[in-house]
């Protein structure tokens, strides 16, 4: 779904800088293998988000002494994540309303 991957990446990076491989892994792990992020989508998305200024990157060594490109959320990236989450929440609520009409008829 458009924008979903972006949100997942931003969410993953909320806990600290991470490289591409780990981001892919984290998304897969957190979604309990529901989302298999393909590299053909992951890297373009990372580069796009970086270009939009929501991510910054730097080269660092991993624990196993491997050079890797680490991505970090910027402050505008944080704001973007918040707005994406809000949008997602509205979306879920709306879908829920359609799937469970009875519930939505209840007076607020």
């Amino acid at each position: 779904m458009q924008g979903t991957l972006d949100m997942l990446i931003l969410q993953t990076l909320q806990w600290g800088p991470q490289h591409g491989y780990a981001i892919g892994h984290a998304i897969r792990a957190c979604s309990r293998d529901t989302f298999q992020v393909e590299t053909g989508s992951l890297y373009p998305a990372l580069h796009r988000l970086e270009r939009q200024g929501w991510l910054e990157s730097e080269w660092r060594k991993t624990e196993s002494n491997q050079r890797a490109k680490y991505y970090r959320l910027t402050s505008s990236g944080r704001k973007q994540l918040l707005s994406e989450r809000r949008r997602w929440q509205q979306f879920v609520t709306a879908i829920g309303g359609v799937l469970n009409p009875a519930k939505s008829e209840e007076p607020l």
Partner: protein
Amino acid sequence: MSLLDWIFRRRRERELEEEIRSHLEMAARDRMESGESGDEARQAVQREFGNALLVKEVTREMWGWGWAERLLQDVRYTLRQLRKNSSFAALAIIMLALGIGANTAMFTVIDSVLIQPLPFRDAKRLVSIKIGYLDSHFGDPDQNPVSWSTYRELRTRSLSFEDIIGIGAWDWTVIQTPQGGQKVGRATITPSGLDGLAVHPVLGRAFDSKDYQSGAAPVVLLSAKLWRDHFGSDPQILRRQVRIGGAPYTVVGVLPDSLLDLLVLQAEVVTSGVWLPSRADEDFDLAGILRPGVSRQAAQAELGTFALDVCNQNQECAKSAKFIVEPCRDVMTGAVRPALLALAGALVLVLLIACVNVSNLQLARHQVRRQELAVRAAIGAGRGRLVSQLMAEGAVLAIAGTVTGLGFASVLLAAVHRLPPNFIPRADEIELRVPVFAMLAVIAAIATILSSLAPALLATRSAPEEALREASGGSITGRKRLRLSQWMVAGEVALSAVLLVSAGLMFHTLYNLEHIHFGFDLQQVTTFAATPANAPGYFGWLAARSSGTAPQAQSVVTRVYQPVLDRLRQLPGVVDVALGSWTPFDGETGFAMIRPPGVPESQQHGLIAAQICYVSPDYARAMGVPLIKGRMISDEDTAGSPLVAVVNETLARRLAPGQDPIGEQIAYPAHSSPTMKNNYTIVGVLGDARQHIVTRAPDPEVLLAYQQVPTSDPRYFFFASGTNYFVRTRGHQELTNAIRQIFRQLAPGYAVDHFRSLQVALDDATFNQRLGLYLTGSFAGVAILMVLTGLYGVLSQLVGQRRREIGVRMALGATNRSILRMILRQGSILALAGLALGLLAALAAGRLLRAFLYGVKPLDAATYVAVAVALLALSIAAALLPARRASRIDPMAALRSE
């Protein structure tokens, strides 16, 4: 995309590479840690990762400069393609360059000359006012100058004009410059003229009212070119005195050259000259500035009410008078307008044909390349990618053609500036017009890019195999388009036939003109003109006549001309020297009616129009004209001795058919001057010498002795206002400086100019014919190029479309030869159809050319045959390449490609 991005592109590329590698290594390590072997892990990781190239490509897109890279790729690919087909590329570029270049030059000229307003204030409302008379008894039918009082009358009473400006007393005169005498134009302008036209001096001041008062100190304004060329742009010229026509004037300013354009009102083109304040005793030609909103017709009608004033209250005259009000610009450019527009029309056609041909060539080339395109489409090249690639090809061609065209246009415009000064009016205002060029470049670019797009679309139809079928022949629209192209090619052949016939006729004419027997020597004779510092001219004569000034006691002949001739004769290398009143081919002539012997003075008919020429004794020898009978004019024929004449053979035959004319007497029938009543005795007969190239037969001619012109005679004023010299030399001699030196000593202040050999004089006279030959010749060259490329393009496409059919024919036993013949026949049919049409059109064109032709009929059989043969041969040559390609089609391959 910022420049910085571009610079760091390489680094980002490397980083992406490393990022992916580190991903793969980390993934592999994870797998190895869970127990897989190194190789297994690496393979699994590769599989999992997918196509790394694709990932990289998609990721690169995100950087935001993918399009630039693609464009670069396309351009590189295009350049490679065009290098491989360099002849195609060269042809296409040349055609576009010709089309764009020639049109840019042409429309620049049209814009500068016909469209841009004259450099005067309210130039759009600036009109010339001419007065003509229906009854020639009252004056010239087209144009007559008006007196000062009429000018004042019209200016104060007419309501149609903001101002009326008079240009008076136009003539040539001699101004003394640091380099000696110079012949320049002179004219006067009425008091409001400079202000009215808003012509501001480049230096100094304009005339003010004091300059116009009678008895004011004589002042003059110089034209900028005169000031530049002969006074070295010296600002100290102001308030200095210069001698003009023998009298001193104070220079008060320098005027822009544009004002001289106004002299076109006098039907003269003058490049440098002097302006004087008008005087009340002059006659004026008029220009007016219309009031805003007043039409030319209204002004004309209103001026009509002043007819009686113009005619000094003569009713008959007033009825006959008509006023003609025309925009000044049209008067100046009217003569060249039709020619320029016709040329422009032809050139637009050239541009159109060039665009069509480039597109035909593109299509033809893609017939050859269509398999490549189809294959590339089949293995997955995106449609957009192919289209953009082919568009890049069109764009590269268009840009190369346009740049070359710009260069070509500048060359052409440089050539325009080298035309004789009076060839195109306002020539000095012609400058490359960038908007014109830009517009044409855009047109050519659109045409080229669109035409390169067509094959792209054809090759990238959704289903490649359908595209292949389309390309190999089934398509109806393709056929229709091709038929149109065939017509176009036939039209091109027709056009080149017309142009080639015209060029052939012009060439023939020029050849004839170069090889005419003129009756005198062209090579060894140098001619030049000498104008006295105080040349009286026509106005001098008028002034002398009205003031009754006593004629000079001693003729200029004995004072100046004779001593000069003697000195010239002593120059090294000089064989003979003479002077005469006219230079051959100059167009200036002195025709007069003469009365043959036996025709009584009172009789009006039986008179003969002959060219009258005053000459010095060596005239015939210097020019190389043979003496047939009797003697030539000699030094003994002085003012005091009996009047003698020498006639040419033509006149001798007319005067006394079959008899000896020596001793017969001829005379002028005119009685305007008592001295002209005298009889002249014929003492000799000269061979015929042609003074004009256009006349078929030599004119009757009378030579009179230069010493026998009385100073009281009106003809003396012309004679004393300048003569032409003829110097026959041994081999080529550079005498200009030596001759000027002699004049400086013996005749100081004389303007000595117009040095040229008689051959050059002839070349000048045949300039129109030569220009016509160059123009039709180069047009014909372009047309031939068009025919070659057009035929090649169309036949190549035809071969491409009929590939399958040709394959079938060959499979059924047709030989290579018969296929070759078939395609050649196709080409010849197009060529013959065009040729038939073209030769018919040439018949009409030849009639238009008639006035330019000499010694060749418009229906010259040799020219027509030569053109037909040449065009057929060229057409066959152009058809040979596609025909050979057709004959080499492999039937199996052609059939299988279905």
